[in-house]
């Protein structure tokens, strides 16, 4: 009888999910209630988790709860520690979910809510969550080895090197684009800038508190920090109206970019306890708290989505980034659907904490579903805005024009009505001087969040909510920036250590300064170009980041597929093989278009050639002619980078195919590096 009710319950859930999805896909009314999206998403997640992930765990990976995990066998009370599954889940989720799932869906909303939503759901349950879970499983069976090491051990030396170089370059581009998002959110916003600036001394205070004043009292210190952060949002409003302080924090993009660059260098050189670690605590608490609050507010408010299901921009003429729906929606939304970066967290840190193999499914698959849900909420926050307002905020001045009137005329001519007064009214309600051309996704997400949170928690507090959202985004963007620069520094030191051993020492000051400066110069260059680019920079950097991140995912899926084939599970290797083929298709197509397309809004070389011709014939306005040589060089560099990423990807996949062919032909392949079975004493 119990089995009957359980089956009936799941069947009912499946029907509900199918109905909600059908409604989301078919609805062509004026608006759609966001609850449909939430219902469809939750049903898809529950069913995928209950059936697909359970099937993979039992029948493909053959998870064995009686097998001792590395945390149990190698328990040293430090990095290998058997830990409660909910605690590991929390650590893992906090590590994988950064600003990516917030920015990507916001940008992809230019195609309408439907394409992005479907990709977030399907990509996560069939691709991203499978990748995370399988990688976590493989690493747990190999004493917590990293993705690069596993690639080397299981397939060949090439995969390991590709994973390492890939990670380094992704880090550089990721930091640049995130830096750009923060700069665009702070541009001419004394309130935003002063609040973001205040997070630095607040983090330092918290750092000193938990290192020296009350050592190890993490929760006390974090609570203090969170209160100060909230106070800084309120204080920012006062700064905004102050004649002297207001002017002090009112800047163009370029000085802000240099500020971020100097900050990034300082953060990489300063000891972790002073800035990075305390900032990370604050950002984690803020992240969890705000995501929860947003979920409650969306459920409470059930806002209407005003964006159409599909916009005409699927033909590639979109203002926010160029390129057709296929493949660019899949490149724009990486985090939230499938993100290769997760494979680095799922191999290395998390597997050393897992108490039982039985927890792998919940942590690997479950945490990714939660991140996917965050991406759905970001999509909702972007699409509850009137489409005209959404495009006015996110379209770069280079596309719709610098003057407010030009911008509203251009946007209204596409059929999305918006007026200058409406935008001015919105900007003043949010406490900003203007909201035109605030590219990067953070301001539009903040407007969306402020209107949702403001309706539930106080309409008159819109400006506070807006800047709270900006602070919330900035604080963990800066955490990623700090942590990424540091990881980049370690990797570079590791590589340089092969040339000159002294440079490889992580505590050797000249090496620390040299490698930090090199890493900061790397992302600082892309950030600088992004700021001087009249088209906003995000439209170049974000696709590049997407391609790089998908390349890393393809490496992780190659390793997983190769191991499954080698261990005799050929008939089930499609669980990672099919997502791999899909990623190969989208990444290769996207890279091909970015390099060879003759459309100057898509192709890097086409844009470079177009700009050179215009420069040579003297038709460019003087301020654009001044930066044109740098933009031309950058477009060419980006084209070569894209080619590099895609060739890396193919090298790894072909290496995996070579190994599989040897296996099928009965020739020797590298032996499995799986640790031997030891019975767990915890069951």
């Amino acid at each position: 009888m119990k089995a009957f009710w359980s089956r009936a319950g799941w069947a009912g859930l499946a029907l509900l999910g199918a109905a909600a999805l059908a409604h989301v896909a078919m609805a062509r009314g004026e608006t759609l209630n966001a609850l449909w999206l939430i219902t469809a998403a939750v049903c898809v997640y529950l069913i995928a988790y209950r059936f697909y992930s359970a099937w993979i765990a039992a029948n493909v990976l053959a998870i064995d709860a009686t097998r001792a995990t590395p945390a149990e066998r190698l328990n040293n009370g430090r990095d290998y520690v058997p830990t409660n599954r909910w605690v590991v889940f929390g650590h893992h989720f906090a590590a994988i979910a950064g600003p990516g799932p917030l920015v990507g869906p916001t940008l992809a909303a230019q195609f309408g809510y439907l394409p992005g939503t479907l990709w977030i759901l399907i990509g996560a349950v069939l691709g991203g969550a499978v990748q995370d879970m399988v990688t976590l499983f493989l690493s747990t069976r190999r004493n917590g080895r990293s993705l690069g090491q596993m690639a080397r051990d299981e397939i060949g030396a090439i995969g390991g090197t590709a994973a390492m170089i890939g990670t380094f370059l992704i880090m550089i581009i990721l930091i640049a684009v995130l830096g750009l998002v923060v700069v665009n959110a702070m541009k001419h916003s004394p309130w935003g800038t002063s609040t973001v600036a205040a997070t630095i001394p607040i983090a330092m205070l918290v750092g000193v508190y938990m290192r020296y004043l009350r050592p190890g009292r993490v929760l006390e210190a974090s609570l203090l920090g969170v209160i100060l952060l909230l106070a800084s949002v309120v204080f920012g409003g006062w700064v905004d109206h102050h004649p002297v302080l207001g002017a002090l924090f009112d800047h163009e993009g370029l000085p802000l970019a240099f500020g971020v660059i100097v900050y990034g260098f300082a953060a990489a050189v300063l000891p972790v306890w002073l800035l990075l670690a305390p900032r990370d605590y604050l950002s984690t608490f803020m992240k969890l708290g705000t995501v929860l609050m947003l979920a409650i507010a969306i459920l409470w408010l059930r806002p209407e989505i005003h964006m159409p299901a599909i916009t005409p921009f699927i033909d590639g003429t979109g203002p926010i980034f160029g390129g057709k729906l296929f493949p660019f929606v899949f490149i724009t939304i990486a985090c939230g659907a499938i993100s290769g970066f997760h494979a680095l967290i799922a191999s290395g840190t998390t597997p050393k904490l897992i108490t039982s193999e039985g927890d792998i499914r919940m942590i690997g698959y479950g945490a990714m579903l939660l991140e996917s849900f965050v991406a759905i909420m970001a999509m909702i926050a972007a699409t509850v805005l009137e489409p005209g307002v959404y495009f006015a905020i996110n379209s770069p001045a280079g596309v719709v024009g610098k003057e407010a009137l030009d911008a509203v005329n251009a946007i209204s001519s596409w059929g999305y009505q918006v007026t200058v007064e409406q935008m001015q009214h919105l900007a003043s309600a949010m406490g900003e001087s203007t909201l035109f051309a605030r590219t990067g996704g953070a301001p539009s997400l903040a407007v969306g969040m402020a209107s949702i949170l403001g309706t539930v928690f106080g309409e008159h507090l819109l400006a506070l909510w807006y800047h709270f959202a900006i602070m919330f985004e900035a604080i963990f963007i800066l955490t990623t920036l700090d942590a990424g620069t540091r990881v980049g520094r370690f990797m570079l030191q590791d590589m340089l250590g092969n040339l000159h051993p002294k440079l490889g020492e992580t505590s050797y000051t000249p090496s620390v300064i040299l490698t930090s400066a090199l890493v900061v110069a790397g992302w600082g260059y892309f950030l600088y170009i992004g700021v001087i680019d009249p088209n906003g920079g995000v439209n170049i950097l974000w696709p590049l980041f997407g391609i790089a991140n998908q390349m890393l995912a393809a490496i992780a899926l190659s390793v997983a597929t190769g191991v499954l084939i080698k261990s005799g599970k050929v008939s089930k290797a499609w669980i990672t093989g099919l997502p791999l083929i899909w990623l190969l298709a989208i990444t290769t197509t996207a890279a091909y278009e970015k390099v060879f397309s003759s459309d100057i809004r898509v192709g890097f070389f086409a844009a470079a050639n177009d700009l050179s011709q215009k420069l040579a014939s003297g038709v460019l306005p003087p301020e654009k002619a001044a930066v044109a040589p740098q933009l031309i060089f950058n477009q060419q560099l980006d084209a070569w980078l894209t080619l590099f990423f895609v060739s890396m990807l193919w090298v790894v996949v072909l290496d995996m195919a070579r190994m599989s062919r040897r296996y099928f032909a009965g020739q020797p392949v590298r032996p499995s590096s799986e640790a031997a079975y030891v019975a767990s004493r915890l069951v």
Partner: protein
Amino acid sequence: MRAYLLKQAWQRVRQLSGDDAYERYLAHYADVHTGQPGVHAPLSRAEFFKQWQDQKWMGVKRCC
């Protein structure tokens, strides 16, 4: 029952944030090292926290 659940939840929060890392270290120390010859006394809270924090940030810890 409710008090028990609240206490459990609080413990999870402390564990998640690392607030109780030192207590767990002492417990681990008592389990493994007590009575072994040549083993130094457990670290002080401040010393332990320093090592714990520095080591925590040695690899890829944050994603996109």
